[in-house]
């Protein structure tokens, strides 16, 4: 697998570390049901068979966290972006 880092260019899988579901957001810690919300965010993550938005860290490259859309059935990479619009900086 080769991931097109927006900064470094296409690089081998071995340079990256994986985190998983890119839609992890910290819920409001002060909400009444904060515990349940955090539980969902931390433990119940997307795990589709097909396109999946996920976070990868370019650990041996530019150290950017990347939001990668990848088909989990075929390992085809469909898109790679910085996780926020501001673009890693």
């Amino acid at each position, binding site marked *: 697998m080769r991931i097109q880092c*927006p*900064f*470094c*260019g296409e*690089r*081998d899988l*071995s*340079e990256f570390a994986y985190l998983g579901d890119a839609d992890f957001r910290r819920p409001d810690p002060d909400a009444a049901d904060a515990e349940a919300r955090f539980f969902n965010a931390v433990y119940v993550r997307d795990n589709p068979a097909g396109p999946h938005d996920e976070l990868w860290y370019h650990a*041996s*490259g*530019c*150290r*950017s966290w990347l939001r990668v859309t990848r088909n989990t059935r075929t390992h085809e990479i469909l898109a790679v972006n*910085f996780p926020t619009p501001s*673009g*890693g*900086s």
Partner: protein
Amino acid sequence: MADDTLTARAPFTDLAFSSTPYGGVVVADRDGLALAAVLVRKGCLAALTARVRERFGIELPRGPRRIAAGTVAFAGLGPATWLASSEERGNAFALTLKEAVGDTASVADQSSGYAMLRLTGAKLRETLAKVLPIDLHPRAFAPGDVASTTASHIGATLWRLEDSAEGLPVFEIAVFRSLAGSFWDTLTHSAAEFGFVTRETIS
């Protein structure tokens, strides 16, 4: 105490320099270079760029590129990070930089953080193909291009300089200082079949 100053110790120690005129791979230690990480502050990219231009005459690169002017160079390591270097030895560079960039960037001295080699030779690319997962073909990696990657399990940052007078490729590679010995082993092993020579300098 009599002699007060601390003497630096090079990361690649006890190199046996060779006067052999030709080796497939030729390396020189670049120890002593002043290095600093420059990390732009939120929303300050334009300001930082202006300051670097003004102070060093360098157009801060936006991608994995290295631009040098005089004794100073800036290499893009990440979207918001550069490795600045200066041929002037000593620890003044980080301070100079800090003062130059002001509050547009954070600066951290890294002069001791890396061990760096300059490499050239007719068989350099063949050697590096055993070490780096990067396409170093002249069409794919031009002078000034920078890459951070792994060199046989060792984190490494490299860039290509202008070819030598003989038309041979010239690269510089930096690894974390603690890994100098392991990197040296990898490099010498990979270059052994081509003839490996160490020099004091490569210009």
